[in-house]
């Protein structure tokens, strides 16, 4: 049995003071802190076990290649993907989405086709599709959300047609925290013959996904939001699609043979891993996945549910506070506004009180327009946060409200 007190000892960042106060870190949806075992692996590889992978016959190169491929197997198991050939390492969610937008787009999207996405997407799951549509003369179609942040399958039916080439949807919104019914959504899209890309940036740290249960065609996530190093990420893609898609970036690693007349590409997954990958980071990501799996998803979910429930209950004590995204299930975050208070002012004062919160449009401008606000404040929790920290933050907000009155 793990206690939060012992878990926190693995995260040195949580023991530091900012402005003379013990840090309260509530920006976990932006990036999570790294446990000591993860930084230990990265440090060890940077200082000792460093050899370029997949090409060297020497000792260090072999060890690094083995570890990198072990990491791929760890990710495959984490996602319950059928094959490691379908696991591509990227620099993060954004890089993964851009890979699909370019390569899938190049192969499958033509003039007058449509890409469907929802109103609640992060800019990273909007802009690459916009650029693809401009390039191909295709169009974006936007699936609206309900007032509580949920999606309705009926409305999804209205968006899908023969013209639809891909549906792009977040597993959970980074603003509302509402978890989308991915299984139903994928089944609906597939009934129209439409493949689905699931943006798991806000899902990976809360249990990930079971690929063989949801049957989604692409799943992407970032390592740094899953207690791993920055600059790591994963693109899962169905083998059949990945095989048909042209490479995105090109160079070393991704070739079978090169002459000046013609290049034969490497098989999956290396076809999509041009250049030297971030193998130290990827090994850190493997450690991070091992770490959370050792804690266990049951423990993590229980903690996070407790935290978000407590936060919602305590925040409602504040007059004029509005919470966005009331539908359930919900990840461990809560976005809100307080009447008459600009979220930036509140975030700035919270910072001075040692509380790291997020404010602004949260990389989701269309959603801000949807709720007719300039921005929001967001607290996002991890299993290492405590209800006491939430109490401190709520008291701080009450104080701020007084100050800004």
């Amino acid at each position: 049995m793990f206690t939060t007190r012992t878990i926190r000892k693995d995260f040195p960042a949580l023991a530091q003071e900012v402005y003379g106060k013990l840090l309260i870190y509530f920006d976990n949806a932006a990036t999570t802190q790294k446990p000591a075992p993860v930084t230990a692996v990265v440090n060890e590889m940077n200082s000792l076990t460093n050899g370029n992978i997949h090409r060297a016959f020497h000792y260090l190169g072999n060890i690094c290649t083995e570890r990198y491929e072990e990491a791929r197997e760890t990710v495959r198991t984490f996602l319950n993907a059928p094959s490691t050939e379908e696991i591509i390492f990227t620099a993060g969610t954004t890089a993964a989405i851009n890979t699909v937008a370019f390569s899938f787009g190049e192969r499958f999207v033509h003039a007058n086709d449509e890409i469907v996405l929802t109103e609640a997407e992060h800019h990273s799951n909007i802009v690459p599709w916009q650029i693809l549509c401009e390039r191909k003369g295709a169009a974006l179609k936007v699936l609206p959300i309900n007032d509580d942040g949920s999606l309705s399958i009926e409305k999804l039916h209205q968006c899908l047609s023969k013209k639809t080439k891909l549906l792009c949807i977040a597993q959970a919104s980074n603003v509302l925290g509402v978890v989308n019914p991915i299984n139903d959504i994928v089944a609906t899209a597939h009934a129209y013959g439409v493949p689905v890309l699931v943006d798991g940036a806000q899902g990976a740290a809360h249990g990930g996904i079971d690929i063989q249960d949801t049957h989604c065609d692409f799943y992407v996530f970032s390592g740094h939001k899953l207690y791993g190093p920055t600059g790591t990420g994963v693109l899962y893609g169905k083998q059949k699609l990945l095989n048909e898609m042209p490479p995105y970036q090109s160079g070393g690693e991704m070739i079978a043979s090169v002459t000046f007349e013609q290049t034969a590409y490497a098989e999956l997954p290396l076809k999509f891993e041009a250049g030297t990958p971030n193998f130290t980071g990827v090994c850190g990501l493997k450690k991070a996945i091992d770490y959370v799996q050792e804690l266990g998803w049951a423990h993590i979910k229980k903690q996070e549910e407790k935290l978000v429930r407590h936060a919602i209950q305590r925040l409602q004590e504040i007059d004029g506070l509005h919470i966005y995204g009331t539908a359930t299930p919900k990840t461990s975050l809560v976005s809100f506004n307080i009447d008459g208070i600009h979220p930036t002012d509140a975030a700035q004062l919270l910072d001075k009180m040692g509380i790291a919160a997020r404010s602004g449009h949260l990389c989701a401008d269309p959603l801000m327009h949807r709720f007719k606000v300039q921005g929001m404040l967001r607290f996002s929790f991890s299993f290492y946060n405590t209800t006491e920290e939430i109490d401190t933050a709520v008291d701080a907000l009450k104080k701020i409200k007084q100050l800004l009155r």
Partner: protein
Amino acid sequence: MQIADLAQQIIDEFALFTDWMDKYEHLIELGKSLPPFDEKNKTGPHLIQGCQSRVWLDATYEDGKVMFTADSDAIITKGIVSLLVRVFSGQPPQAIIDANLDFIDQIGLKENLSPTRSNGLLAMVKQMKMYALVFLNKQP
């Protein structure tokens, strides 16, 4: 008074506060007492869009001096806007172009002018200097 004197005045004023909370409270009061900005001017050309907060800025040129009016939708940003208006408004264009912003640093609010803040303040300073440059070149 010249820019340097006005800046020194602000430094002295803020030196009275040892607690950050008092300092911000003062900043908030300053923001609230900023002369109102004409609502109908809160449009395209006067808007400086930051990712976090918005700033509006307008300028006129009278008797060799640049007069600024400004506003923000966030009150702390508005407090700093008021400091910038206090220091720069009523000064000759060349003095505005040559001025530095060390006083913001000295009163411990440097992070507000950091590019990472994206509150529109840095762009506002740039815009103030731009106005000054335009007015300078208009001089006969």
